[in-house]
């Protein structure tokens, strides 16, 4: 059986300069299995190649001399060859499968690793479907090549050995076989390229069809609710017919290849048979040898077929590894600093230089802005999500730029929970516990703080129940509260919550505001919100001006009561939910003027 359980613990770091480099790297990584596979492939093919020879000898030496000892001996040898083929065939299959799995799993893991580390850079650079296809399809195509390697090598070796044997016995026939077979192979290989290009067109059309299908399925709720099923089924059918047309184009060429695969080796066999028969008539060779040559000619078309197949698989593997490289190449949005700075001590200030916002240790602060996008932007950059976009807006923890800190430590010390976080499928309790250290009491405590106890009833099985993908079975408000509980459970030194209560009712919001403030009391916390229910419970509120700079700070009550311009502006912002003015925010309401970061940030949700 396969000795090594998969997946392997270490995925390694592959070279991404070219498909050839990447494939070679993987070849080296699984050289042990490949070697076994090659070895046993050679044995299998050689034992198979021995069959015509032994059959010929059995006819010559055995049959010719009647039913006797010699026939039994030759048949015994054939039996031995058969036994070797059977046993090596078993190992050949085991190791071919292991090769396939090793390669396919390795690339699946590499892609998964990338997706787990790249942050939002991956969704920004590639459509989700392409990343999934890299695992669902491309990794498997690369695996095919690895699985074929052993048999292919065996075929090549068997070809060389057989050619040598025949050459040593009969020069003319030997030359015909030695050169005839590669010529046949060469001619057939000529068709491979155009065939692959048609297959490529077919695959592309199929890919579009699959994308169309999964897009339709993803929006099925809308189609069933609003209509358009027929339009979409029709669209799918049209593309399906296009795929069929492309498939027929492949079939036409493929059938020519199939015909040639009969014709060329067939003619070669006839040539061998004719030459051999003439030699037999004049007594140069025996009838047993004639049978053997015939057997060889037939046998050798097998390696040729394998070579054509291998060629196709290699080409496909190269195409697929290029796609895999496309995914692996995505640069992480926030890579680990090359030489991380020493960590600032606990209780350091977090400072956003462009806005002037300073998070002092132990304070629970609200951030309010006339333009909610602006305050969300400030909050999000406190978490360091995109180095490239944030180069102009430095944020420092204890005086050190975030980008220069050890990333893992940063993620543990500062947690930013955005407005629409993703919920993953899995056991509810495990999904809540992002750090993997919470007790049941902790979980229940966080659910209480987020006023999300009702979720335990909505998810059958409660904490041990299964949460479906994206928390689909929950209402929007429930999803938001689960996400809030999850953020609270990370227990970071500094917690930033962006609009944590935008999807819940006022009653619930009031409870959450009070409980979250209690839970985080004495620990640095920033809440971006314009809700007076929340702001009222915080130690301090910071108001940004139109230029997204800190304009004022104070308690909610103080700011409300200020008689100056600041007070008026604050009242306008936090009271706006009641007002039906509309004039001040229509200008910036057109959704396409939101800045790039926000668009990027929201894109995921739109998809």
């Amino acid at each position, binding site marked *: 059986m396969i000795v090594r359980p998969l997946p392997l613990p270490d995925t390694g770091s592959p070279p991404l300069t070219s498909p050839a480099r990447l494939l070679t790297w993987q070849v080296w990584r699984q050289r042990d299995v490949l070697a076994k596979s090659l070895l046993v492939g050679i044995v299998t093919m050689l034992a198979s190649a021995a069959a015509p020879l032994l059959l010929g000898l059995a006819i010559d030496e055995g049959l010719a001399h009647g039913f006797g000892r010699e026939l039994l001996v030759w048949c015994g040898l054939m039996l031995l060859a058969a036994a070797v083929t059977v046993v090596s065939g078993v190992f050949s299959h085991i190791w071919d499968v292991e090769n396939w799995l090793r390669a396919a799993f390795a690339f699946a893991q590499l892609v998964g690793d990338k997706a787990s580390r790249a942050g939002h850079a991956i969704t920004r650079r590639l459509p989700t479907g392409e990343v999934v296809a890299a695992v669902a399809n491309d990794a498997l195509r690369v695996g095919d090549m690895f699985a074929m390697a052993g048999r292919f090598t065996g075929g090549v070796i068997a070809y060389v050995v057989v050619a040598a044997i025949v050459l040593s016995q009969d020069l003319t026939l030997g030359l015909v076989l030695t050169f005839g077979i590669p010529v046949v192979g060469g001619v057939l290989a000529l068709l491979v390229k155009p065939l692959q290009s048609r297959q490529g067109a077919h695959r592309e059309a199929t890919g579009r069809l699959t994308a169309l299908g999964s897009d339709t399925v993803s929006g099925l709720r809308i189609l069933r609710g609003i209509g358009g099923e027929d339009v979409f089924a029709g669209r799918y059918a049209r593309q399906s017919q296009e795929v069929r047309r492309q498939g027929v184009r492949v079939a036409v060429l493929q059938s020519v290849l199939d015909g040639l695969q009969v014709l060329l080796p067939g003619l070669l066999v006839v040539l061998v048979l004719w030459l051999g028969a003439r030699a037999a008539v004049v007594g140069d060779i025996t009838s047993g040898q004639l049978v053997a040559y015939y057997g060889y000619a037939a046998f050798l078309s097998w390696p040729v077929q394998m070579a054509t197949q291998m060629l196709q698989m290699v080409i496909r593997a190269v195409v697929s590894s290029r796609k895999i490289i496309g995914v692996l190449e995505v640069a992480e949005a926030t890579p680990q600093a090359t030489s991380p700075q020493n960590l600032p001590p606990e209780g350091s200030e977090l400072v956003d230089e462009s806005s002037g916002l300073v998070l002092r240790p132990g304070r629970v602060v609200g951030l309010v802005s006339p333009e909610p996008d602006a305050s969300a932007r400030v909050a999000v950059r406190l978490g360091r999500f995109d180095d490239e976009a944030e180069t102009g807006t430095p944020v420092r923890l204890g005086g050190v730029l975030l980008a220069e800190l050890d990333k893992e430590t940063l993620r543990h010390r500062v947690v930013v929970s955005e407005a629409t976080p993703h919920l993953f499928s899995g056991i509810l309790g495990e999904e809540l516990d992002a750090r993997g250290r919470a007790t049941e009491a902790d979980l229940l405590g966080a659910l209480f703080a987020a006023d999300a106890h009702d979720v335990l009833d909505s998810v059958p099985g409660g904490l041990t129940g299964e949460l479906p993908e994206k928390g689909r079975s929950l209402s929007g408000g429930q999803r938001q509260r689960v996400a809030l509980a999850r953020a609270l459970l990370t227990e970071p030194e500094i917690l930033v919550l962006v609009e944590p209560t935008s999807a819940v009712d006022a009653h619930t919001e009031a409870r959450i505001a009070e409980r979250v403030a209690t839970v985080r009391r004495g620990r640095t916390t920033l809440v971006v919100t314009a809700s007076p229910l929340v702001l009222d419970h915080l130690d301090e509120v910071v108001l940004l001006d139109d230029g997204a700079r800190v304009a004022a700070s104070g308690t909610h009550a103080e700011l409300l009561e200020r008689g100056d311009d600041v007070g008026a502006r604050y009242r306008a912002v936090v009271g706006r939910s009641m007002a039906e003015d509309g004039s001040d925010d229509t200008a910036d309401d057109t*959704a396409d003027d939101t800045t790039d970061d926000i668009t990027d940030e929201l894109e995921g949700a739109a998809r």
Partner: protein
Amino acid sequence: MSTTAAPPAAGANLLPIADRAEVNRTVRRLFRRHRRALGAIAGLHTVAAVAGLAGPFLLGRIIDEVATGTTLGYVNTLALVLVGAVVAQAVVTRFAQKVSMVFGEEVFAELREEFMNAVTRLPLSVVEKAGTGDLVARTTNDVNKLQHAVRFGVPRVLVCIVTILLTVVASLLTDPLVAIGLLSGVPLIWVATRWYLKRATPGYLRESAAYATVNGTITEAVEGARTTDALHLGAKVRGRLRRDLSETFEAEKYTLALRLRLIPSLDAAVWCAPIVIVLWGGWLVSQELTTVGTVATIALYAHQLGGPVFDLVFWLDELQVAAVALARVVGVGLVGPDRQAGTDVPASDEVRGHAVRYAYREGHDVLHGIDLDLRPGERLAVVGPSGAGKSTLGRMLAGIHPPTGGSVTVGGVPLVELPLEDLRQHVALVTQEHHVFVGTLAENLRLADTSASDEALWGALGAVDAREWASALPDGLETEVGSGGHALTPAQAQQIALARLVLLDPHTLVLDEATSLLDPRAARHLERSLNAVLTGRTVVAIAHRLHTAHDADRVAVVDGGLITEIGPHDELVAADGDYARLWHSWQHE
């Protein structure tokens, strides 16, 4: 499938998988439909296979002739006959293959189109229950898995069977006595194949499910990449993928173990048959019951059988996988409708709920008998704490699920007895979820009204205040949007959803927190867009922001699955009940 929604628990929410009989029925139906093509394939491949049998036969003749002494001229003639046979075989093979593969393309296209038709007709309640993960897997993985089998496998299997049968027949014709030796391989092949086929299907089912899980994990990892980064969940995601791959490995190991019994058995049978024939033939030759050439011919036939037998086995393996995929593809078509459309025509536009009850799980009523009459043209805000049953009530009012008790009617006709096309003309539900389809903006809008003119589309966009950004798109209405196209913000996506409603033009709309997942300002903006287009319609707005309630004609407070208060805002405030308390706390007074 039951018609009521079960709790969305894992395992329980999967779509049906067709049983063997159903899969066989589908295959038979497809084959019957393509009888003629199948006949042509079988005929052509028979001719090709016959031509392919000439080689060993003529070789046997040559051996016997050489033994008795013959001329080079005779050899030349035989060689020419053989050339003719090879050319004939090649030409016929070419056409046979073409016909087979075109057949495969056609059958596969039919299959997937039928599948997509079934998918787009799934009852809404089922779609919500099953989630899209399983369906996406069937649309992509399973359909693709079928591809190989249907396009190449089915024709190939036919060829193999024809070749095997003809080779056996040819052996029998050459010398039935020697050909008996061919039977030596049959028992082993028979037993091993039966043993294998019985166990393979569950093994491949498990394998298929394991791969679907891996793909699901990757999908989630990509879609949630930002959250993964923010909460430092990377290690967790990697751990999950590792677990999924381990399970896939176990599943692969099981099917491998099955094949490891099958393959050597077949191998042994295929290799032993020529040996038995030579031994048996040797004895017959010694008894002068046959000739050496005949034995050689049949031994070569036996040897030649190895290829098609292995090919057949390989494809049986593949067809097993395909049968599993087919069971999942066909399974989608087995979902029964969740409602029976009647013929009654609503007498008016009045929507009435009477004693409406609903339970997602039996015995766990979410709604406890709600009576609610909508007044045509009114704006009703539904407020209440989370989990009170607001969304469920909304779904009942929109006719998504049939209620477990009581009824919701429009003009006297139960909503769930209206044909879906008609239902949408009456009531539409707008939820928090929005999806921008791959395609042009125009295509995204025309879902609601396939015949709408460009002017109508612009009108609808204008009505939802989306004209400005839409006209700024690179190709206007023809701009490609959705995954891979021009990226839209959630607010824009939501506006598209609203514009669709304008085009659909139902008299009653149920808005289920349609704007709650956006940032508050965008939500208010959208609500203003809505206000402009909702006039003249009956609107039920399920909301958590009280200013929506403030604007409404009536407010219904839902708590614990019942309407506890209902009336105009001012009255409820004056009544000093739950609503008044909420309102005051919201106003911070």
